[in-house]
């Protein structure tokens, strides 16, 4: 299979304009690393799934592939043409060959345009027909193609006359009428009812065969990805953490995150009880990604090199106080001078100052208690030392190592995890 899109070291960063407050506190404007150094090859004719939670950067990556958001760094080659850095004016003619399907079918069609005009508009823009009559014929064909029959009736219908599933078909017709090579489908079925999801996926699959399409299927739903995709890339906080064939992802998941996602998908089988051991917490803020592996704060099997820092210690103590209750919190938090500031401690050893009326040994006692109560917490694997120095406690952490996406040992895919690639 030849390559249609080649993405290398692609980054898409957004600058959040810091408010007056954040400028005063000296943290300045934040940079959100929506996509952070992604390498990806899209083969002609395949369906590649981009799977991840919201905030994983999957939608931004999909939009960057179409040149809808500018790349901050790296390259996107679409059939030999470099898209990164190309002005909108030069990308526009290329849009004929790459199309997009949106998550919300109710918002993806201009409410003031009838379907005939909306679906025929791409043809007009790219001047692909010789006149109104030919445009009309092509639009009617496209409507038939996506199963909106009788086409004559839908031609003059407005989006408000259609159900969600029908609107999504119309959106597919608008994309397909240009005979594109690539369609990026961003959660195309997640807003549809269960009873029409299957039909929409079947339609997308049949379009692939009839039009020789390549799809990028963006979703948070592993179940539909399993049915529709050939390969799947699992994304977490702007990076691909695992990529491989559908078989390798579902039968031999390597990354702890992939495993967790697979465990969490609700299954309509009441004999299976709800999983209790899901990773804690949520996907972190992409403007302040954790050190090392971004998943380590939630990872049940994280160990020394995964990127432990002061903010992990803070999260651990907060967890502890949630468990022990308000009185333990009252007593133990007083021991620290600036507990919330642990959140912003840099990589490396953390110096913890004791609070008023407390000494460094009080701090050490609390930390040791926390460790004794949950000795198996992955955090303690990353803590190399705790000692008193100059009236303060110094907590030493193992130095973080960023995992790289490397071939899975004994498998066909790639995974970015220290468990599989000990450094």
């Amino acid at each position, binding site marked *: 299979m030849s390559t249609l899109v080649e993405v290398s070291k692609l980054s898409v960063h957004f600058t959040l304009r810091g408010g007056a407050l954040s400028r005063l506190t000296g943290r300045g404007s934040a940079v959100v690393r929506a996509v952070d150094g992604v390498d990806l090859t899209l083969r002609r004719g395949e369906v590649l799934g981009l799977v991840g*939670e*919201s905030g994983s950067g999957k939608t931004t990556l999909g939009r960057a592939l179409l040149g809808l958001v500018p790349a901050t760094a790296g390259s996107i080659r679409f059939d030999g043409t470099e898209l990164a850095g190309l002005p909108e004016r030069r990308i526009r003619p290329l849009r004929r060959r790459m199309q997009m399907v949106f998550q919300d079918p109710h918002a993806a069609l201009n409410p003031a345009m009838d379907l005939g005009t909306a679906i025929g508009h791409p043809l007009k823009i790219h001047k692909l027909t010789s006149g109104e009559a030919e445009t009309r014929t092509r639009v009617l064909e496209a409507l038939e193609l996506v199963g909106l029959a009788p086409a004559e009736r839908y031609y003059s219908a407005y989006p408000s006359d259609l*159900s*969600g*599933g029908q609107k999504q078909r119309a959106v597919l017709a608008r994309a397909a009428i240009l005979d594109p090579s690539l369609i990026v489908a961003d959660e195309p079925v997640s807003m549809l*009812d*269960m*009873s*029409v*999801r*299957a*039909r929409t*996926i*079947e339609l997308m699959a049949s379009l692939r065969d009839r039009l020789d399409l390549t799809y990028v299927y963006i979703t*948070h*739903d*592993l*179940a*539909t990805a*399993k*049915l529709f995709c050939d390969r799947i890339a699992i994304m977490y906080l702007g990076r691909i953490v695992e990529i491989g064939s559908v078989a390798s992802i*579902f039968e031999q998941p390597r990354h702890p995150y992939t495993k*967790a*996602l*697979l*465990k*969490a*998908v*609700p*299954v*309509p*089988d*009441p*004999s*299976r*009880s*709800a*999983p*209790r051991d*899901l*990773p*804690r917490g*949520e*996907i972190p803020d992409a403007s302040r990604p954790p050190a090392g592996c971004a998943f380590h704060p*939630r990872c049940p099997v994280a160990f020394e090199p995964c990127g432990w820092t002061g903010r992990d210690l803070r999260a651990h103590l*907060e*967890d502890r*106080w*949630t468990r022990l*209750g*308000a009185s333990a*919190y009252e007593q133990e*938090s007083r021991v620290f001078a600036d*507990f*919330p500031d642990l959140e912003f401690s840099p990589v490396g050893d953390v110096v913890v100052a004791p609070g008023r009326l407390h000494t460094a040994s009080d701090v050490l006692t609390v930390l040791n208690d926390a460790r004794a109560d949950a000795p198996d917490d992955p955090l303690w694997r990353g803590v190399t030392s705790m000692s008193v120095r100059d009236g303060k406690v110094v907590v030493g952490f193992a130095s973080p190592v960023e995992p790289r996406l490397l071939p899975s040992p004994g498998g066909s895919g790639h995974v970015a995890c220290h468990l599989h690639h000990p450094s």
Partner: protein
Amino acid sequence: MTVLDVRGLRVWYGSSRGPVRAVDGVDLAIGAGEVVGLVGESGSGKSTLGKGLLGLLPDGAQMDGDVTLRGEPVDARELRRRRGSEVGLVFQEPMTRLDPLMRISEHFTELLKVHDPGVSKAQREKRALAALRDVGIPPSRYQQYPHEFSGGMRQRIMVALTLVLRPALVIADEPTTALDVLVEGQILAMLSELRVTYQMALLLITHDLGVVAETCDRVAVMYAGRIVEQGDVRTVFRDPSHPYTRELLRSTISLATSELHSIGGAPPDLVDPPSGCRFHPRCPDVMPICSSQDPLTSRLADGRRVECWLRGSRVDAR
């Protein structure tokens, strides 16, 4: 103990084309510590049913039927009055319910002041922190503002704000739909635990059969304003009795799905629903009687209630 008992509930609301029969004759009962899943597609009337039970109906909607709450008959006004204290609610978008300018502590103070005016400040704080602890929010974050929390944590806070008043019944309308799959799992597991500790009756409104399977004891399947089948989750999922339940289960895409299936046609217009059984135009097992006469409610040996002419031979009082 039965917390909520609903019989023959109807909620209609007006439209330019005539009344929309969003909920049209529904029977439902929930006991203490029980989780009932109300599933249906968009437009099935499941959210309207939830809103009706909370007394949150829009202007021009009308409701009738017999609703009893802990044995007392209540009407729409009474339900509205008991919202919060006896009937709690958890919605899809927690941010719309939290005031961005108020600390979490202030949310609790306001709420407890209104509902329990006699309680001291220390007592209020104690109750609030206990509720937050139950939903897994660290006490260190009690004084923070809503925007400092992630989506899942906001939903946890909403649950805590609901539970702190110890309602007998909680209605949760798509509580996890806006959340990611891992967070959804966490919240569902938490709800399962809390209904035991709080002994509350939970009505979980969702479109996701997977969520129902993992969380609920009983399930009520709603189609076009009526509950077409209800019963024990395991029984209903293993051996669906109503063709709609069966088709809905078959069309659900899960990790175990190997073959795609969908239900033909589209849900009916509730201004002018089909005659007889409302599912008959889409039903693969349709019989001549289905379009001419309303199906009777039958109770199967395993305790299920089904509205279908296929099971119509055994008409029976409940």
